[in-house]
């Protein structure tokens, strides 16, 4: 098992999400950067839906009281075992009674720690993804125990030791479709959204990414309708709110764009303060 000595910030257990309960108001949840989380599972020979630890920098401090094989993907963080820096990019063997720590990410936002066999936190409504009010806790905390599978010779053979984990490149564009209310915008408003450069606000989290541009577009609210991760909402004040994995299932702001799956992953990788443009597909 893994003992959480320090939780870091925004560290949660996530799988691919809680499908089938959105009509009851339950957010989808699941990993923000599916590509990176899946890569970390695949290299270990885990099912793609195995639960991983998602974290932003600074990352958590974790004590392994039994051996494990791990992969660390996503926002590039230096990995230390008992203080010694180890190579990332490939699976890492952790011995009994080892302390795992992370350095700050040099770029991007979300990092993933996958463990051979997956994290075995309790499944609630078909998913292990943390969400306050659904799972027992919303984030990991100091003293928490994360259960993991016991390593065997057989399971260790499933690990692709020689493979390399993918890296994240620079993101300048975020791919999006027209949203349900896009046709209601004036031509000038459409231009302002599609031609402007947007900045990611530090007030962003797993529920929503706030983005700002110099050109402010204002539109009225709508009657509450369905929304989903990747829905780009325009509030009456002109702030753009892009819904992320823990977003509500319905909302009353104009849905001007809808990110593609790829666009969602692109946006999840942009750090606060960085700029991007939307690219209509």
């Amino acid at each position, binding site marked *: 098992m893994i003992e959480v000595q320090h939780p870091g910030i925004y560290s949660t257990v996530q799988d691919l999400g809680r499908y089938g*309960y*959105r009509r*009851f*108001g339950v957010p989808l949840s699941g990993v923000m950067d599916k590509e990176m989380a899946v890569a970390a599972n695949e290299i270990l020979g885990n099912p793609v839906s195995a639960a991983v630890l998602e974290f932003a920098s600074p990352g958590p401090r974790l004590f392994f009281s039994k051996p494990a094989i791990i992969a660390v993907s996503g926002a590039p963080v230096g990995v230390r075992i008992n203080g010694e820096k180890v190579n990332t990019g490939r699976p890492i063997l952790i011995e009994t009674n080892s302390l795992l720590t992370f350095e700050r990410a040099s770029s991007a936002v979300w990092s993933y720690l996958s463990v051979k066999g997956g994290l075995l936190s309790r499944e609630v409504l078909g998913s292990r993804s943390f969400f306050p009010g*659904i799972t027992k806790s919303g984030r990991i905390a100091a003293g928490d125990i994360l259960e993991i599978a016991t390593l065997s010779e057989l399971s260790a053979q499933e690990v692709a030791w020689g493979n390399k984990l993918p890296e994240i490149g620079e993101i300048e564009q975020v791919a999006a479709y027209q949203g349900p209310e896009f046709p209601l915008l004036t031509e000038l408003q459409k231009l302002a959204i599609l031609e402007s450069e947007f900045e990611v606000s530090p007030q962003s989290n797993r529920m929503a990414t706030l983005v700002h541009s110099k050109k402010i577009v204002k539109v009225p609210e709508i009657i*509450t309708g*369905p929304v*989903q991760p990747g829905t780009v909402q325009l509030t009456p004040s002109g702030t753009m709110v892009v819904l992320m994995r823990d977003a*509500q299932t319905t909302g009353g702001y104009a849905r001007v764009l809808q990110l*593609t799956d790829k666009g969602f992953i692109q946006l999840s990788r942009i750090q606060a303060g960085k700029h991007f443009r939307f690219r209509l597909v």
Partner: protein
Amino acid sequence: MQPQIDKFGDHGVLFRWPETISKEIQHELLSLDAFLQKQHGERISETVIAYSSLAVFFKKNLDVERFIKDFEWPHLGAIEKPPDSATYIVPVCYDADFAIDLARVSEHCEMQEEEVVQLHTSVTYDVRFIGFLPGFPYLSGLDRRLYTPRIEQPRKLIDKGSVGIGGRQTGIYTMNSPGGWNIIGKCPLNLFNVSKTPPALFQPGDKLVFKAISMQEYERIKRLADQDMFEIQKLV
């Protein structure tokens, strides 16, 4: 009325009726939802209902554009009306200890606090859909004399069970949450429970009435509800 159908992200479609809150639209929407589950259930991951629109999310390998092109409209008017739901009795304690904004509502609506409670408990509400929080029912039917704007600075924490009025809407917070509605009472029931199937107490199409209860009654029901021993009553 045939709703508009559009692609909604890589795996979804959105059916939209005109933006109004009407019983006819709700009936058509629930009928279409039932039709889709029956005819296309194996291709659908889940659906989300709102006032006048229905989102359908498909399993990952479905070509959404193709689905829209090939979609054969059912004759919605011909679909049998779903049977009338029972009317659930939802106990609410409007005691001053819980009703932190009752004075504000009574002042805004220019009536006595007792009249606010009387009006709030005198109508039958329709559950339109579940959203905002897990299990949170969006209700229609609030008496227009009780319309009260949301509080300007939303509170960081509203207790689970709090009953509020926000603009033209009324509802029950199903879990602790930030919120901007005027709190006028508290309900001892658990409206969302992950160990129940389905996890939400109310479904779109259900009806409910609020019944004023004393603090003693609130505590009695709360004790039972927390042990999952309280059976919600229905109007007969």
